[in-house]
């Protein structure tokens, strides 16, 4: 008998026994589903110590269940309403009665054809056809993203940086405001200089590029620090589940 499986089955048995013994005795949950949730949560947490049979079990279960989950979602929420129902509405009468009355939209043949082309990879004779579908996907992705990024990240971000470096508020100089704006404008400029590829980072250019690195480091440090608390709250939620919903130790 394999040692890891002995551990795994032993653990599951122990857990099951606990479940049966505590049935209605203490504040601990009597709901089998909660117990399953608790077991799986503990199995994942055990990875923090080291890899072990419980984690392996949970991980492999997670992969199988979640892969099937998204495939079912894709089938029922995309393929059925957005393809089958468009090409031949009556077929979805039982599932989507509202759509079944609509006239068919035949241009949905195009994605269907592309999908089948993509599957031609499996064909022994013409696997190269799948590359046409891929070329279509890559062409659209690049085309769409080129304009999207140009618009919101390039033009949009530059626009927000068109600010006065000397701020006058109610007729008098605002030192704080001016300082902040100077930092923003210089920060963006130096940050961009850091990314320059085709000029050696030397002299004044090198100094600016150093400042750019510092600005990036502040950005990274600040964003990191800001996220820490949000991450901890996820763990608090899990602990509240384990100690509250499952063990019944919290009011």
């Amino acid at each position, binding site marked *: 008998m394999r040692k890891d499986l002995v551990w795994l089955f032993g653990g599951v048995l122990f857990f099951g026994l606990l479940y049966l013994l505590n049935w209605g005795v203490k504040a601990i949950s009597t709901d089998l589903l909660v117990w399953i949730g608790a077991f799986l949560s503990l199995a994942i947490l055990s990875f*923090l*110590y080291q890899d072990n049979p419980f984690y392996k079990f949970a991980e492999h279960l997670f992969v199988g269940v979640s892969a099937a989950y998204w495939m079912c979602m894709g089938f029922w929420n995309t393929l059925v309403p957005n393809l089958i129902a468009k090409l031949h509405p009556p077929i979805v009468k039982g599932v989507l009665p509202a759509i079944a009355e609509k006239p068919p939209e035949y241009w949905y043949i195009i994605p269907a054809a592309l999908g089948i082309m993509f599957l031609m990879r499996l064909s022994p004779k013409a696997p190269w056809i799948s590359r046409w579908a891929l070329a279509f996907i890559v062409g659209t992705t690049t085309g769409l993203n080129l304009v999207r990024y140009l618009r919101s990240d390039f033009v949009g971000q530059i626009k927000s940086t068109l600010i006065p470096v000397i701020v006058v508020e109610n007729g008098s100089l605002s030192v704080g405001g001016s300082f902040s704006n100077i930092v923003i404008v210089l920060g963006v400029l130096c940050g961009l200089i850091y990314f320059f590829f085709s000029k050696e980072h030397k002299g004044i250019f090198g100094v600016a590029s150093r400042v750019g690195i510092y600005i990036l480091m502040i950005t990274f440090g600040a964003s990191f620090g*800001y996220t*820490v*608390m*949000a991450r*901890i*709250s996820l*763990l*608090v*939620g899990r*602990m*509240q589940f384990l*100690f509250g919903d499952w063990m019944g*130790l*919290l*009011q």
Partner: protein
Amino acid sequence: MNPDKPKMGFFETIANIDRRVIFLFVGFAVIIPVLLSFSCREEATPIVQSIFDKIESLPEGSKVLMSFDYGPSTVPEVQPMVDAFLRHCCEKNLKIYMMALWGTGHNLISESMEDIIKEEFPHKVYGLDYVNLGFKAGQQGLINVILTDLKKMYTTDALGSEIDAVPMMVDIRNLKSFDLILSMGGGFPGIKEWVLFGGDPGNIPVAGGATAVSAPLLYPYYPRQLLGLLGGIKGAAEYESALIKGYPKFKTYSHPGIDMMGPQTVAHIVIVLFIVIGNITFFMGRKKEEEEKREGGALK
């Protein structure tokens, strides 16, 4: 220098600490406060206190519009804020008008009504003290319309009653009829839209609560366009504290924000301590290294 394997000094041991020790500390830092229901006293920061003070200052019968602009995924963060706002408004005998710019907000209004108003303030009467206007599509366009004429969009309340048959709706004409707008959410449409399309053009005070992730994007509006803001669980906890301070009876009520904050704060402090210790040991280690180097150099 030393032919034998150098013995790890105290500082090296700490500097190269097994990360599982850190995990253990973080684990305890969360588990112990959770078990003991430990909570820190949260002091309301000015950005939170200003909302509390505003609601405090409103005379009885003032009209507060609450917009539920969030969905189930952000309920853990946003619901504590909603509950705190609702309790405060009920306690102050303000009239509460609830609406939603998000489709998902509709159910959340009903749930909040059941859980807070009906449960904790059973003497409040629907239609006199609070009303559910439900969800209407239109996003910022909706705000734009109700800025001038609210009843054009809301011909009935969410339960289907004629809008003018609801007593508290009779003297409502548009957004300007309200004394305060509270938007709870963080995404789009949300607080930002309320500020730009409602508060600014109508000159109506807008405040609200947002998720921790989206709060920084709203800071630029405070305090000129945005009266105040609760950012994430911390904001909710601060408001709950302010509420308890003002009305000690709320101490016995649920306060999920404060409950969540205790463990978070302890864990945060543990992490900060680890960073400090990490740096001290790093410098001590380096100092020692330099000394050894110097000695080594002298020997040559």
